[in-house]
């Protein structure tokens, strides 16, 4: 039963952190090149554009959910399971979500890279 809880928490962490990253990426893509914006309108305009962007705010909420999910999972299971599982799975879910929701061109090169990093992070974090 505890195992079911742990894996549900891991799934929850992976989903919320993927949602956070995708929304953050969407917000920044819509805001555009921050260097250009900074040169044109100054740092305050950059900060204002970011913190008032709805996707950015939802992304922050998702990251908070994922952080507290992590604390919860760590109270149920070992860190040597939770950290590698969540860190490495997010590379794969991010590639899927970026393709589906951000319409990024995830070609073979990016898939191989995501899978290598996923495997590497899992091995490193054990």
């Amino acid at each position, binding site marked *: 039963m505890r195992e079911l809880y742990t894996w549900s928490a891991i799934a929850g962490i992976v989903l919320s952190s993927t949602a956070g990253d995708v929304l953050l*990426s969407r917000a920044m893509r819509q805001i555009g*090149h921050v260097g250009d914006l900074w040169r044109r309108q100054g740092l305050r305009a950059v900060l204002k554009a970011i913190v008032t962007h709805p996707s950015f705010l939802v992304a922050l909420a998702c990251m908070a959910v994922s952080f507290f999910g992590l604390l919860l999972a760590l109270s149920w299971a070992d860190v040597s399971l939770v950290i590698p599982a969540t860190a490495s799975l997010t590379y794969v879910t991010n590639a899927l979500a970026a393709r589906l929701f951000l319409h990024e061109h995830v070609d073979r090169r*990016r898939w191989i890279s*995501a899978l290598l*990093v996923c495997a590497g992070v899992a091995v490193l974090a054990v």
Partner: protein
Amino acid sequence: MSFRKYLVLVALVLFASFGDVALSHGMKRIGAISAARWTELFTAVLDPWVALGILLLLGFFASYLAALSWSDLTYVLPATSFGYVLLALLSVWLLHEKVTLTRWVGILLVSGGVAIVTQGPALTRRRDREAETELKTNPARNQP
């Protein structure tokens, strides 16, 4: 990708790795905080190492946002996973931990992933998307 943009990616990796090391060093100095005295978490930020870690992680977040404003998520994430390798190497040099064979395998896998993704383009252009939809509808005209 211009040289400046690579610098932002390098800064991102450095901020994240050194931020984690500083946080972890600070929290180890403070010692375990029990659930009953969880409010001690708030006084933990007064520790200079924890404060430094938080500052560095703010730097990480700023460079992450900047990188995402001009690169794809599926480029930034694998490219900056080099931080895991850096963290493993830092733990050898600074904390004198032993690197086992499995860890070397992990380092090699992550480095391979980083090397592969950084060879390709950083941003999806409209042309790529059109090529992809064409590939789906007309697989005979396969592109290299």
